[in-house]
């Protein structure tokens, strides 16, 4: 039990560090992990755990935060976080630090442990919403410290970046991500007896839309929600695809039919009133971050009320038929029973007129 609790504390501490790594004010951040849907829900569950831990832990603040990943994935697969490694959440720490030093840009560190469980290459995706200074570090697993001679190079595309040797077996670069041009894939390569590489994908946070279409009915209201959990978008824009064109949904244009509301820092909602058939189709919600824009796709289907009415009527007819069948069968079997009973009654009368009363009951009993 104690070991488990200690393990929980350690996990919580790690969790906490991870949270501090990214600035942002909302609950859970799956974008940083992978595109795996299940990890998102992991994120949610772990957020709760982290929330609980946040209450119990005090939060010493530092402007530098450390994030590290245990690389588990297959080569060139995005790294899937283990259960113990957590996802960022409410980031009180960065807020505080920002308050104390409003001019300074937060600096974040990201580490990758090389190599992965199998293979020679690992990747990770980092979502950034604000201007930050990022320090990317590749650490060589001590199991491989026997590899003595190797060349380390950091590249972005074809461009080589000069790096610093942090320690004997870790190398890092500092990137000032001040605009969207600095986003992209940064990779560190260790060339030696073995070639190992790690890739950091820096990108804007992904928007969570809805894979399944939203279904609504004519003259009804449709509500579509977009969110970027864990991050704060500066502004949101909604587009509608008409044919091949994207039309901005300008609230002032069709004020009576479209209502765009900002539910919270990371959630936006589009409400369409009095739907018509033409309202069906693709919709895009676009979030603008400091470092760029990100889009999410939603689909709206508008049905007429005839659509569910057909199965409804079919089932009602089935119910009526079944009830009628059962009642008819019952009336039929009651009639049969009654004729049988009357026959027996007549027989008993006949028997009684012949013998005494007791003998007739005995006969009936014997028949039973």
């Amino acid at each position, binding site marked *: 039990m104690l070991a488990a609790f200690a393990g929980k504390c350690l996990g919580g501490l790690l969790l906490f560090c991870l949270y501090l790594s990214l600035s942002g004010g909302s609950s859970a951040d799956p974008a940083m992990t992978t595109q795996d849907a299940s990890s998102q*829900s992991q994120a949610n569950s772990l957020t709760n755990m982290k929330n609980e831990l946040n209450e119990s832990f005090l939060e010493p603040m530092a402007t530098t935060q450390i994030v590290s990943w245990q690389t588990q994935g297959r080569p060139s697969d995005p790294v899937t976080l283990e259960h113990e490694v957590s996802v960022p959440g409410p980031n009180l720490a960065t807020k505080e630090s920002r308050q104390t030093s409003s001019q300074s840009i937060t600096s974040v560190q990201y580490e990758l442990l090389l190599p992965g469980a199998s293979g020679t290459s690992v990747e990770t995706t980092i979502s950034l919403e604000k201007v930050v200074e990022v320090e990317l570090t590749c650490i060589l697993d001590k199991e491989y410290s026997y590899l003595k001679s190797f060349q380390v190079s950091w590249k972005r595309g074809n461009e080589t970046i000069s790096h610093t040797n942090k320690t004997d077996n870790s190398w890092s670069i500092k990137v000032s991500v001040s605009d969207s041009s600095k986003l992209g894939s940064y990779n560190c390569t260790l060339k030696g007896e073995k070639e190992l590489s790690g890739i950091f994908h820096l990108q804007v946070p992904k928007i969570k839309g809805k894979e399944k279409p*939203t279904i609504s009915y004519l003259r009804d*209201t449709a509500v579509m929600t977009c969110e970027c959990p864990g991050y704060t978008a500066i502004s949101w824009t909604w587009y509608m695809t008409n044919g091949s064109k994207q039309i901005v949904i300008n609230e002032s244009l069709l004020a009576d039919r479209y209502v765009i509301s900002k539910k919270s820092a990371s959630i936006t909602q589009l409400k369409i009133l009095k739907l018509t058939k033409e309202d069906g189709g693709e919709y895009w919600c676009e979030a603008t971050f400091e470092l760029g824009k990100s889009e999410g796709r939603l689909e709206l289907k508008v049905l007429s009320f005839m659509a569910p009415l057909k199965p409804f009527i079919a*089932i009602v007819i089935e119910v009526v038929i079944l009830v009628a069948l059962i009642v008819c069968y019952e009336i039929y079997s009651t009639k049969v029973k009654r004729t049988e009973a*009357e026959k027996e009654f007549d027989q008993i009368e006949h028997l009684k007129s012949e013998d005494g009363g007791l003998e007739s009951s005995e006969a009936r009993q014997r028949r039973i």
Partner: protein
Amino acid sequence: MSPPVSSDLGYVPPDGGWGWAVVFGASISVGFAYTFPKAFTIYFKELQAVYSISYSQIAWVTSIMCATTYGGGPISSILVNRYGSRPVVMFGGLLCGIGMVSAAFCTSIMQLYICVGFITGLGLALNLQPSVIMIGKYFLKRRPIANGLAMAGSPVMLCTLAPLNQFLFDSFGWRGSFLILGAILLNCCVAGALFRPIGPGTTSVKTQVTVEGKGALKRDVTEDAMEMSSPTNLPMKNKTEEEGDRDCCEKINQYLDFSLFKHRGFLIYLIGNVLMFLGFFAPIIFLAPYAKHIGIDEYSAAFLLSILAIVDIVARPTTGIIANSKWVRPRIQYFFSFSIAFNGMCHLLCPLASSYTGLVIYSVFFGLAFGMVCAMLFETLMDLVGAARFTSAVGLVTIAECCTILLGPPIGGTLIDTFGDYKYMFIKCGVVMVLAGTFLFIMNYYNYHMLAKEEKERKAKEEDPKTVRTENEGRNNWIKETTQDGPELEPLREEQEGPKKEVNGIIEV
């Protein structure tokens, strides 16, 4: 062949034949009543977005539905006592359908509360109680099996209703789904149609009481078409008492038998069950969140519930068969208390499960225990009060349980929120259930003891010769033979007056 009159019903239940159709109908009704609130939660997210409300506001819908389903028990009992099961179930099915169809056109959350919560809940209440009552009317010797099979409808319906709801929602949105769900709930009317009325007058000629004259025979044949599912007390009293001579209490008791509160077995059952329900439903509700909390992904957590449901489907009829065996049936109350305590033990051991395999094992045992308890829930009550008074008993029990059923999950939720740990909720549920099981065990031991004593006293009294004794001796002999109706002897005593008077009347003729 053993003498036909075998219970306080005044007739011999068929124990088969059309009874199996009734079991099928009952399983449909019971399934809808128990699983509909659970399956409804799929719509929460969408409704929250459409009406811009919080989770707790939308969760009120299912709370109101559950409250009405359990709280509507006495209304159900009164209506069944008055009109019989079949009309009540069909009306209930109709209500459910109307409720859901009107919910499809709702424009505010208040209307949803009324349509889905209140109307559908009431319809489900009118479905649940009569179904269970009908089983008691159609089965005696095989009643535990019938109960087990009927209650097995709940997990089966859950396994079908949950994916069906998801499919409907993906294809038709929430309004269309409500419309179609309304139609699906109308199938409760089909179940109701299967509940062919049965009673002393409607059984076949072959199963009549032995010594009868032609007068009795003719009377019963003409009574065939009549609804005779009201307790036998009623027609007997009509014959022997004057019309306007009933006092107020008896009139009320005719509709809802409040004299049950003087019944020792009923009180034991009531207290034990009210205590048990405090910790009964909370673990199911919090199993998936707990799994996610300790780091299991959403799909595996949902799979845990599926495992629970599958084990449940198997456990309920099996428990029915075990409870029907000649070793267990006379002491079925002990089996029931054991299964409650077993359930509690599972919850107490759950916090030790920290991996997915541990949780799977917990789910299996929990499913088993849950199925055992549910299968015997109504069987034990029937066993204690007898089938005739069961109608009122079930109504009174459900309205009493209603409070603790609704309190259980919020208390668990508060525990989780205060301590930040799920284990206290499991410990609370485990302790409550173990306590309930022990209480029921001890009190039923006392009850069996008292019943045996009363039986001895009654036999001693009836040794004196009186006018028409053939009937009673025959019945006593049968009672000695089949000890499985031990706890039902108490109500049997009252019922003996009835048929005896009937026999007297015939002989006078």
